[in-house]
């Protein structure tokens, strides 16, 4: 399968030091709903090849952040830059086209379609079929279809859903639906993958599996951001952390630093903490 976008070789540490331009830049991002500031002047960068953790108490605006980045909401003010290009306010399908993909906190799936069908559809952008080709099945189409199916099977295998290939998404267990969501997002061939609470309500074993999966995704050259409440698990894999609280960024840095940060502790515990 051709990769039309250039990929870094996938060694995070080296890249971080060398890469001149952040992959994603969040500049003064603000989102108001009526009188409520869901996001309040948020600024941070995301670098190629890293795994960025995004944490914060409930209602901090983490999912809103994703929604604004991916075009579900327009920001009230501020900009989102991807690879140096201003993508603020682009609609979701365009964002996906540019190379950003996301998973959802509460699974969003094609309930009655099978796992295999999901993965075929997820490659929508890469099944280059001419306008008329959409309507009728030609020989050229058939070759591309085979390639698409092959990649779909590869993705299914990657997340371990081989046994459930022909099962309807709605019939899968919660955990497998989660994996499907990840596989679908990967099918769009993203450079940046935004995960929204991938570990919630999973058994410790599954948590490890998903963490490994995320690492592997990064090793394949995809930059990852992860919103998570399970900090213990998250800090095992992420390189840096951004902390949001009530719409504003209150801390940023290495997991170790952030854990000790007084502001962060205050935000979570809701009061002064004296060590």
């Amino acid at each position, binding site marked *: 399968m051709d990769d039309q976008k250039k990929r870094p070789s996938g060694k995070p540490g080296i890249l971080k030091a060398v890469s001149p331009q952040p992959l994603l830049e969040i500049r003064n991002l603000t989102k108001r709903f009526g009188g409520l500031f869901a996001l309040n002047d948020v600024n941070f960068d995301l670098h190629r090849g890293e795994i960025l953790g995004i944490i914060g108490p409930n209602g901090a605006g983490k999912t809103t952040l994703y929604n604004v980045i991916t075009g579900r909401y327009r920001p009230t003010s501020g900009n989102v830059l991807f690879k140096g290009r201003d993508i603020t306010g682009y609609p979701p399908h365009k964002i996906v086209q540019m190379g950003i993909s996301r998973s959802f906190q509460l699974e969003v799936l094609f309930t009655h379609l099978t796992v295999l069908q999901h993965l075929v559809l997820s490659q929508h*952008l890469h099944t280059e079929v001419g306008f008329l080709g959409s309507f009728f099945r030609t020989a050229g189409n058939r070759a591309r279809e085979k390639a698409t199916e092959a990649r779909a099977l590869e993705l299914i295998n990657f997340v371990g859903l081989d046994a459930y290939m022909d099962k309807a998404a709605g019939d899968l267990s919660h955990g497998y639906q989660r994996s499907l969501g990840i596989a679908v997002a990967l099918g769009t061939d993203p450079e940046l993958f935004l995960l929204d609470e991938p570990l919630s309500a999973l058994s410790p074993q599954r948590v490890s599996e998903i963490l490994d999966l995320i690492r592997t995704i990064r090793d394949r050259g995809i930059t990852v951001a992860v919103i998570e409440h399970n900090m213990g698990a998250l800090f095992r894999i992420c390189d840096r952390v951004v902390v949001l609280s009530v719409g504003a960024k209150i801390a940023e840095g290495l997991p170790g630093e952030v854990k000790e940060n007084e502001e962060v502790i205050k935000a979570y515990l809701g009061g002064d903490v004296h060590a």
Partner: protein
Amino acid sequence: MKRNRPKSKYIGISAALLAAFLIPAFVKSPYWLHVFITIWIYIIVTSSLRFTITMGEWSFAHVPLMGMGAYTSALFVKSLGLSFWSALPLAVLTTAAISILIYLPCLSTTGTFFFFSSFAFGEVMRLCWVKFQNPFGGPMGLFDIPYPDSLQLPILPAIKFGPLSKTPFYYMTLLFMLISLLLLYMLERSRLGRIADAIRESNLLSQFVGIRVNGYKMVILVIGTAFAALGGSLYAHYFTLIQPDDFYWGLGVYIIIYLVVGGTQRFEGPIAGVLLFVLLRELLRPIVMYVPLVYGFILAATLAFLP
């Protein structure tokens, strides 16, 4: 994808086709030919409505757009002097273009809202036919719509369309119906059909796999409209009289009922629905007043027992 359909299905379809083609040989009564002609036309309209539903939205402007197809086709022939055979495709294209105008504002809505906003704009369009005597003929509509010109096919003698024999109309509408069904079937099986499924299942996820949802919705609506317009044109040149009330929302309701009772899930659903209701109406001719009653009860029963 199931490629091996049971043999019985092929036999069934072939038998039905054969029967359909042979009907005029056995049924001489013009009345019954008329019934079948209307059945073929309604099948085109109902099946095209079903096609639009595959993307998850119900449009209530479908029948008014059928009417638009009827009016434009009639006008092309009557006022512009075109032959039916050129007017038909032109009417289809014109109506498809008009449908873009109607659906464009509605696409920012979904579900029930889309249903009723499409109804609203369809109704505005329909009222234009009532209001503007010229060119639409006002409440009285357009009458004296010419029959299609004689068709000169290679081997056969010229096929004349006129009030005397219904047979040419029968075959013409039957053929158009079969072609329409074939096209609709292929479209549904194509990539466009897969995209429609995705949009129906989850608008949100569709966006996030890169599907430009509103664009595809519009494409599907316009294609559906094209077939409805085809049905409309056939209607106009067969009945030779069209009035705004022919396409008011009551007929839209009937079409929806045919579709719902026939079944929205399967491609053959609309065919079954139309056949059931129209033939039933004929059976109940003696108590024609009660026909809507029966319809109502069938509908209620279907909704209650068969989702």
